[in-house]
């Protein structure tokens, strides 16, 4: 398995261990903390028992090198041990200025892992992709490989080209292939715990940052800067932050909690033995309106509103809006999404076990926010020393 130190990868690895699998993680070396230490930290977070841990092996490897940075001997050893590969490692940045790194991980890295699969006795490849390989599109997206040419960012693009290489190679080599395409994954619906605080979390974090900043300015320094930005105290101790969020005319954001994702992943892996493509998505997207409502309620705010594109005059944007807009720029395509992900194949498998994607209601939202804030948006997940 690759990507075992990531958000989804660590969840999958833990679940596999709990269910009695033997797991071998390829983890990239990191100058500050050793691969083993990083994994150990995560296993503790997951509460994996020492007994289960014994079935885990960690190898330091570099996905960006053809031989994975291993000696010939070790590489050969590896090819003799592997039965199945779960490939979760990926550069998940959306940013164009990181294109080189993103391509290196999502295309070249994938190629190197595929070579490993081809040279080993691996018979099944499980690939973590994304529903957004669909690219710039509106309307239905099917659970299969569909040719596309335009994308909203480098992440979508490289994940798409990755899939293309993947299908060809697995076909050529006679390796069975499952492609899992989640939409946007957030914390657990059970307890709100999470390991990553990007995507859904980032805009909220930005808003909380602004709130705290201006509250402090008002309470301690007379509120001059708040006033300059049109920020003032609202009713009942709330803070008025004048931010209109351009919500477009889309369906909203497609969000799935991580516990649902894991259940779905395990069930599909267990059930689908012939290989296919699966959308692990929410059948009901969350509207920006609803998220704004949760946010203002949870953080005791006023003045934030979602507006449709035609009602949003860009010229009239205030400073706060310009800033907020710039901060969340990368997430906009997902906030104004018109893509509809068909999930017939996934549903037909999950229905049998009555696995359903929970709705993100206010209660769940609150749980997730509480955990995020408690852990300093991830900064002290494992205690301060491990920032």
């Amino acid at each position, binding site marked *: 398995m690759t990507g075992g130190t990531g958000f989804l990868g660590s969840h999958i690895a833990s679940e596999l261990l709990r269910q009695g699998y033997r797991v071998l993680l390829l983890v990239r070396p990191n100058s500050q903390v050793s691969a083993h230490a990083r994994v150990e930290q995560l296993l503790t977070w997951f509460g994996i028992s020492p007994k289960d841990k014994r079935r885990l092996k960690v190898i330091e490897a570099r996905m960006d090198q053809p031989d994975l940075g291993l000696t010939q001997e070790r590489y050969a050893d590896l090819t003799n041990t592997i039965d199945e590969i779960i490939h979760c490692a990926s550069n998940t*940045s959306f*940013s164009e200025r990181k294109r080189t790194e993103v391509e290196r991980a999502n295309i070249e890295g994938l190629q190197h892992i595929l070579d490993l699969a081809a040279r080993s006795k691996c018979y099944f490849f499980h690939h973590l992709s994304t529903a957004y390989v669909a690219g710039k599109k509106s309307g239905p997206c099917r659970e299969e490989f569909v040719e596309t040419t335009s994308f909203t960012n480098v992440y979508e693009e490289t994940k798409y080209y990755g899939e293309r290489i993947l299908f060809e190679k697995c076909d050529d080599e006679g390796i069975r292939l499952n492609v899992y395409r989640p939409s946007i994954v957030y914390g657990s619906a059970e307890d709100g715990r999470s390991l990553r605080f990007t995507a859904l979390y980032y805009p909220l974090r930005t808003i909380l940052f602004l709130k705290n900043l201006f509250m402090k300015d008002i309470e301690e320094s007379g509120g001059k800067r708040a006033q300059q930005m049109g920020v003032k105290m609202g009713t009942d101790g709330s803070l008025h932050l004048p931010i209109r969020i351009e919500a477009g005319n889309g369906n909203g954001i497609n969000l799935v909690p991580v516990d649902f994702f894991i259940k779905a992943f395990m069930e599909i892996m267990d059930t689908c033995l012939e290989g296919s493509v699966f959308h692990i998505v929410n059948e009901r997207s969350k509207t920006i309106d609803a998220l704004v409502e949760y946010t203002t309620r949870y953080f005791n705010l006023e003045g934030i509103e979602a507006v449709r594109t035609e009602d949003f005059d860009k010229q009239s944007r205030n400073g706060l809006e310009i*800033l907020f807009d*710039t901060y969340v720029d*990368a997430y906009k395509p997902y906030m104004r999404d018109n893509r509809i992900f068909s999930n017939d194949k996934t549903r037909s498998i999950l229905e049998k076990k009555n696995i359903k994607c929970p709705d993100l209601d206010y209660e769940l939202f609150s749980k997730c926010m509480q955990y995020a804030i408690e852990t*300093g948006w991830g900064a002290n997940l494992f205690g301060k020393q491990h920032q």
Partner: protein
Amino acid sequence: MISEQARQIASQCRHYAMCKIDFLETGLCPAGEKRHYVSYFPQGRMDIYSALANNLLPLTEGLVDIANTCTLCGICDKQCHFVTGMRPLKVMEALKRHVEASLSENKAVTKIEEDAVLKDLRKIVGTEWATNDPAILVTYANDPFPLKDMQMPGYVVLPRTKDEIVAIVNMANKHGLPYVVRGNGSSVFGIVFTDGIVLDMNRMKSIAIDRDNWVAAIEPGVTSFDLQKEVQKHGFRVNVAEPAATVCGNIVCTGIFSTWSNAYGVAADNLINAEFVDSAGHVFDLNDVGAPNIFAFRNEMVPPPGICTKAHVRMYPTTKDEQGLLVPLGTFDEAVALARDLSARRIGVALAVLGGHYLSTFMSPSAALADKVKENLTKSLDINSMVFMVGDRYARDAVKKMAGVTIDDKLFRMLMLGLPRLAEDEWAELLRNFEGDKYAYEIFCMEEMYPLLEAALSPSPETLAGAVDEDLRDFYAQLYSRPEMTDLVWLNMFRIISSRMARHKHVIAFILYVPLDRIDIIKEINGLFKKVGDKYGIENEFGFLTPMDFGKRAILEYDYYIDQTSRSDAERIGKAMTEIDPELERLSADIKGIKLMKYILSQGCARKEHFLYR
């Protein structure tokens, strides 16, 4: 009794002579100001304490006088802390205690007898201004250069006039004694030492301003700082080097280069005329028909043309709307390209590409804060390089249009005065997770951001002063409430913070001229310094790059950081230098425009055309 704490501080004196100029308006060390010998300044006292700790000094009349004249006023504590983060007052107290203890134990005070040479010297300059007392000599015997051992002179003399200098040279020749000239004692390359006579120029400090010709005539003891201060009163600026260095010393030694060289040039460019006393005791100036041609350049190490006794330097006009501007950039390549473009277009009076260590150190009054800021600059703000310029409003407008994102005077002040808050994790985390196509600094520098930054950073002298030891906070708060302390133009004219480069460790700066249109070569050179530095485990970093001559050439500085008291560091730097040298020689022979500073030493008056166009 030697105090271990004081000994350690004393052994770390960087010898930048910053305690010999009044750069913080605290006033000067009263004893040093009156007695002129470096021995009476904090720097000399540090050396004396080190020598005592190493058992190198007897109790002499000079030592007693030096200890007695320290009033424990504490000025040096402030000055030195600003530059090095050290608190030398502990040394001054320990020195006084040590001498008092010796006296109370009735130890004999040695009086070193006057010999024939000293008699002659005193006849020339007066009794007070020549000496052979070891407590004084020892402060002229050493600097932090790791590859040079201590060399005690026989005599130190402080002449007041050119005629006295002529007489001293003749006398030295008569006795067959070698001599060296010492400016302000800020040289750190082990080159101003002798067994014979040291001439300290500290009493020759007069400045005469010729307003009509825009020229300043200076004596050899005038420091860059003092000259800049004087000409600024008249609305002018001079191109000078490190603040505590003497201008004449710089002129003769390496020639003057600075971030202002983009507009003002280097070496002979700034020189109107100079007067010398040659090794035979003859006086000449550069306009004498028979004078040696020191505008010429020889590609070898040559002795200096003589003792510079007077220099006439150019004063440059300033405009009221000048301000500094910083351009953050994501890569070194982008920064070099921009700097070159600006230089080619004649934009920017001062202009340079700065490394991360420079900027963070300049802005932070403590080393810990500087480290944090440096990390945040690259990791959170994506700033990997920075172009710095000073220009009038038209020039700045042009740069804003060319570069897009800039940090203007106002933003710089805000950032600097709010620096401790900027270093806080919350900010860093928020910016670090930013996923857009823009560099994080692009958002950061948006004008819409200013009120937010103000709210977040609460920029104020008190906020910034929060970064230093508690007992110094009031002093720093007052200091930073002076507008010039956060003014990019002033700070770069007076360069009082460039000595901070060596705050955490002694710095060995490698300086060379490079062709600015060959960024591949510049990167190769940086790569070479890095490779060799890393190989020997020496902390190293790109320093700065200043364009000149319309973007054709540039001055490159790459820095190695070492512990000046460590033998093994000295060995490693020695090995590194032997490894780098032939590589640089090869590059310099193959590629036009590369010139190593070691060849320009003592040829600082040469025309740049003669050493850069070969």
